[in-house]
């Protein structure tokens, strides 16, 4: 239980707050302020996982988001579990439960490890594809085991109890990265009064300053960080977002930030708190101060636990008080990495040697180390590490980096930690998300952001500016520039003084040469997460994969959670060398969002569960609930589908509801129909032009059914429109078509006929509509209204005003069932009271609530179409046998007239709406069933149409359907056949689409 690698002092951890956690079932202790990675290292946990392909033991390499190996499954329960968390980015909390995502059955004894060792040489890139591809149908079987043995984390099996959300942010300046450059930029922009957001992915702002040996104004750099943060926190317009990764840079300076608000507190969020938040930021200017990632060197067995990034070793020592070993060998190409040796010495540990690839290094850091008596082996590098689950020795040899050759025999040094540094790669990801390709700078051996078309400024290390003093200046100037460009006054400020150290240029070294050829040397890993080796990359180029994008896809270089943050530059440098071209010629792969993984919770935000999609309710919804309705989704509306009584299935309920309407009276909530109030002296002419039929002669007090077509002559909506006064109409539309009809009217008025004086306003939500339908509807309504309902006083297709249930109502005598019907419209606020009065009065008439299914059956019996069911955008009014609804003599060319007179719309044998009566009256045709005339023809058969609506009619006692059939109107009495998927056949007779009461005697009483 002891933290064997914990230093006795130092670090930013709180030693008064020990925290217990578990990893792979074992309990350990760490401190508040640790990352999980720091705590694992403190406890001497060397192996955190097994590699993807070869199943080699792997340890922690880095201290930030670039970590390729310590990718863990976190959470003690199914509901709380999250896959693929970088241990280097996960703050330690009490009770944290983590496990390796791979290594089956366990990381220390791994079946795949045997395969990896024995078969390693036989597992080149593309191994799985090449080996398991044939026979193809077995791939599924192989895949299951391979994924289990290799794979990364697994998705949770239970619902996440936490809530996630979005925050829409707008700012003048978004500063990405809270290191030296970012803090200086935020300070400059904030002081100018601009709205600033400063986002940083770590637990604390400060970045590299938190573990730097350098001083600012002679004091530890972290003191300056604290001072700046205090000033920023005091600015009203500055928003500080720690634990917030800017993961995507999208068009028009739209950036997304993944903020982990409570992941440092526990595996689920404290009650009421939001666990993670996706900030959607629209920034006028962006300052990218994303810093740089150190590049590791690629040498043999560089993946054995105990091989780490040099800078990461410094971070663990200085920030967390953890020394991940005792005896250090450092292999470097640059001056800056020497600080690791100094930190190591200061911690009281042994620096075995520094291998510097440069022949004669003399920079300030170098001299400081030399002065302390550290053994510096110049012109040399670690060419191979030894060890199985932990480094035990490193071989240092003299090399010729340019010629890629080892020039001396190796010297094996006993050690337990090899730190390497091949230079620093600016984090150009965000700068490149929108396609600006990074540019290689030979002077600093790094890619820097290329031309950007966005309103952005890069500052600090991402810009290739590395010396601390320069970084601060660069950051501050970027902040001033961004703020002034958004209209704020420039500010000046004193920046802290930095003790400058002279640094010499580093040397270009990516893959370290070995005395054996790349193919024969022990594996030199480029991308540890994907098990991509230098040999694999060479092989890929030899096999003809020359484009960097192809190399990536063939070898898997740069895939996975780390997206090649450590490996990509080394990989493309190796590919370039292998092909004898320059790094510039090789180029980089495309950088795409997201920079680091974003959880699905954050992507979904609040839009899940009940809030997944808006649900619209009518004013009568609670009555439907009380009366046991089953609901149907119609667009976003919840409409009662049917009202089953105890023990009834849908078939029985619909049969009963239909019978009640045909025999006595039923009531339907029709509130969802679209309703548009139309006023203006040209309202009537406007209707003439948008409907297919004529409106000139519709008197005040009357209502008429209308069809609407698109320009192509195809039906797109229908409904009844009533004339309320000379210049005043109310139009009804289909439920689903309400919004698009409203837009349609506005578009035509505003763009085509602005000279027509007419205005439209949606009143869909204002009016609640209750339809009383059935032979007893008149008697029932008479009991609750003062309107004269007499046959002559209130005839079919007219409307009246009056009180219904004591509430002012507009009542329309129109019918969608073929029965005597009244549609009662009242202001929605009062609908419930009216409904209750009608229902009370309706008891003696067996008033039966019915839903959309019964409505559909009843209207189909009458041959009434439903737009979107009988029509599909390819059906003209004539196809529907509704030529009676086309005003062929209207003077102005109305919408659809020209379209429906095209040759194709006029031809014979178009599909036409007919009724179908199955020969077996109990067989219900499936809706959508394809129809043929000759069922004996060979497959594929010539199809002649399809079933659009199909039901069993309780009133008529047989099944029936509506269908579109080629030339159907001329084929009355003929047979069609529906060959079904199950091999059966339903035979039906073509009949009129009007099954019930063709003369309308039932509705005209």
């Amino acid at each position, binding site marked *: 239980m002891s933290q064997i690698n914990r230093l006795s002092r130092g670090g930013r951890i709180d030693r008064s707050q020990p925290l217990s956690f578990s990893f792979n079932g074992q309990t350990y202790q760490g401190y508040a302020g640790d990352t999980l990675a720091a705590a694992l290292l403190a406890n001497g946990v060397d192996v955190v996982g097994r590699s993807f392909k070869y199943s080699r033991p792997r340890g922690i390499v880095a201290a930030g988001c670039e970590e390729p190996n310590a990718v863990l499954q976190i959470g003690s329960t199914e509901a709380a579990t999250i896959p693929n968390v970088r241990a280097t980015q996960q703050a330690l909390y009490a009770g944290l439960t983590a496990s390796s995502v791979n290594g089956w059955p366990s990381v220390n004894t791994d079946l795949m490890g045997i395969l990896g060792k024995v078969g390693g040489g036989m597992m080149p890139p593309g191994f799985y594809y090449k080996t398991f591809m044939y026979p193809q149908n077995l791939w599924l079987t192989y895949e299951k085991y391979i994924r289990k043995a290799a794979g990364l984390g697994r998705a949770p099996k239970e619902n996440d109890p936490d809530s996630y959300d*979005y925050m829409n942010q707008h700012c003048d300046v978004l500063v990405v990265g809270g290191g030296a450059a970012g803090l200086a930029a935020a300070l400059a922009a904030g002081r100018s009064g601009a709205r600033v957001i400063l986002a940083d992915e770590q637990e604390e702002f400060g970045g590299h300053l938190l573990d730097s040996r350098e001083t600012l104004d002679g004091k530890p750099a972290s003191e300056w960080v604290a001072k700046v943060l205090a000033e920023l926190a005091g600015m009203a317009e500055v928003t500080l977002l720690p634990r917030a990764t800017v993961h995507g840079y999208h068009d028009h300076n739209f950036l997304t930030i993944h903020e982990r608000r409570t992941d440092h507190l526990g595996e689920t969020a404290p009650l*009421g708190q939001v666990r993670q938040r996706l900030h959607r930021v629209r920034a006028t200017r962006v300052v990218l101060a994303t810093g740089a990632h150190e590049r590791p060197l690629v040498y043999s067995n560089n993946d054995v636990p105990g091989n780490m990034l040099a800078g990461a070793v410094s971070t663990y020592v200085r920030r967390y008080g953890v020394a991940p070993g005792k005896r250090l060998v450092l292999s470097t190409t640059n001056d800056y990495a020497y600080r690791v040796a100094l930190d190591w010495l200061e911690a009281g540990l042994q620096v075995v040697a520094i291998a510097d690839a440069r022949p004669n290094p003399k920079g300030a850091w170098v001299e400081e180390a030399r002065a302390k008596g550290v053994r510096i082996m110049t012109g040399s590098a670690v060419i191979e590490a030894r060890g199985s689950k932990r480094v035990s020795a490193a071989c240092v040899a003299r090399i010729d980096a340019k010629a890629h050759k080892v020039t001396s025999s190796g010297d094996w040094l006993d050690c337990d930690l090899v730190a390497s540094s091949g230079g620093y790669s600016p984090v150009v990801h965000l700068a490149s998300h929108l396609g600006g390709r990074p540019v290689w700078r030979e002077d600093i051996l790094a890619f820097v952001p290329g031309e950007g078309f966005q309103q952005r400024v890069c500052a600090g290390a991402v810009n290739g500016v590395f010396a601390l003093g320069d970084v601060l200046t660069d950051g501050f100037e970027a902040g001033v520039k961004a703020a002034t460009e958004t209209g704020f006054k420039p500010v000046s400020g004193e920046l802290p003084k930095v003790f400058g150290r002279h640094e010499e240029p580093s040397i270009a070294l990516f893959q370290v040469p070995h005395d054996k050829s790349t193919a024969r040397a022990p594996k030199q890993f480029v991308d540890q997460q994907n098990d991509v080796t230098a040999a694999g990359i060479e092989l890929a180029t030899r096999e003809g994969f020359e484009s960097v994008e192809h190399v990536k896809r063939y070898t898997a270089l740069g895939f996975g959670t780390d997206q090649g943050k450590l490996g990509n530059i080394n990989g493309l440098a190796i590919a370039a060398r292998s092909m004898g071209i320059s790094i510039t010629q090789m180029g980089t792969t495309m950088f795409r969002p997201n920079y680091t993984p974003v959880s699905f919770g954050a992507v979904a935000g609040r839009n899940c569960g009940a809030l997944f999609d*808006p649900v619209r309710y009518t004013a009568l919804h609670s009555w439907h609930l009380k009366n046991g309705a089953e609901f149907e989704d119609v667009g976003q509306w919840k409409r009662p589908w049917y009202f089953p009584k105890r023990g009834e299935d849908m078939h029985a309920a619909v049969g009963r509801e239909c019978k009640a309407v045909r025999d006595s009276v039923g009531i339907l909530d029709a509130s969802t129909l679209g309703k548009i109030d139309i006023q203006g002296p040209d309202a009537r002419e406007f209707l003439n032009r948008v409907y297919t039929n004529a409106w000139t002669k519709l008197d005040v007090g009357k209502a008429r059914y209308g069809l609407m077509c698109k320009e192509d002559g195809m039906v797109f909506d229908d409904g009844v429109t009533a004339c309320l006064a*000379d210049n005043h109409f109310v139009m009804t539309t289909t439920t689903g078509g309400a919004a698009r009809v409203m837009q349609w009217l506005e578009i035509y008025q505003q763009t085509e006929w602005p000279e027509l004086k007419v*205005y439209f*306003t949606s009143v869909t939500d204002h*009016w609640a509509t209750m339809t009383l339908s059935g032979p007893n509807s008149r008697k029932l309504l008479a009991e609750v209204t003062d309107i004269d309902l007499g046959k002559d006083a209130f005839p079919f297709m007219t409307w009246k005003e009056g009180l219904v249930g004591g509430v002012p109502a507009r009542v329309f005598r129109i019918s969608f069932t073929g029965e005597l019907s009244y549609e009662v419209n009242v*202001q929605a606020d009062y609908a419930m009271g009216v409904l209750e009065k009608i229902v009370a009065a309706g008891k003696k008439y067996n008033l039966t609530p019915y839903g959309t299914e019964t409505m559909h059956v009843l209207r189909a019996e009458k041959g009434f179409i439903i737009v979107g069911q009988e029509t599909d955008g390819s059906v003209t009014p004539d196809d529907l046998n509704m030529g009676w609804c086309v005003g062929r003599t209207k003077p102005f060319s109305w919408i659809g007239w020209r379209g429906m007179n095209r040759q194709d719309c006029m031809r014979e044998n178009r599909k036409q709406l007919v009724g179908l009566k199955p020969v077996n009256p109990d067989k219900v045709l499936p809706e959508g069933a394809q129809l043929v005339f000759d069922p004996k023809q060979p497959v594929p058969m010539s199809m002649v149409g399809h079933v659009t609506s199909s039901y069993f009619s309780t009133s008529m006692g047989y099944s029936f359907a509506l269908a579109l059939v080629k030339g159907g109107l001329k084929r009355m009495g003929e047979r069609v056949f529906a060959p079904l998927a199950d091999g059966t056949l339903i035979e039906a007779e073509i009949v009129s689409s009007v099954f019930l009461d063709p003369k309308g005697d039932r509705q005209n009483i």
Partner: protein
Amino acid sequence: MSTVNVYKQRPDAAHAESPLFHAGLHELAGKGKSTAGVVLREKKLLGHLTLRGDGHDAAFAGAVHKITGLELPGALGLVVKGETSLQWLGPDEWLLIVPGGTEFAIEQKLREALVGQHYQAVNVSGGQTIVELSGPKVRELLMKSTSYDVHPRNFPVGKAVGTVFAKSQLVIRHTGEDTWELVVRRSFADYIWLWLQDASAEYGLAIEA
């Protein structure tokens, strides 16, 4: 007057259910934390009239002013006087909100004043409601809900915007430093109510009757 049907739609006395009636807000009132960051109140059963006309026509603007006492606001404008407010909804469209029950009389007066002009006045009182949000955390709540910039530099008091809200749309009105109103369509009211509860959970939500 015969060219348009003007109809008194609100009964003098009848059981009324506003769009958020089913939420039982009156029962929730006073039960939230006193330190709630968001306070919600439904300003229910008011008179809502949609007006459409030519705002550049002095006769139209003059008539509206004569009856309401309010100047026709320009783009994204909202003017409030006592319990009456007039809000720009579009280049030829305004929302007039008046005390509940007065909308019929006001529509009649408007029509008298506008006689001979081309315009539209429509009673939409049953179709929408006002949700008033106040408290120190309302701005954050709105930021979660809409992509429109609600910072006072962009959205000062007296501005009103029809915009996206969660996965729906509504009108946001800034009526006081920490006070905002949402004009919510009846059929979407339940969705918005659920959304507001969920999104304000971390700040604490209190209901005012």
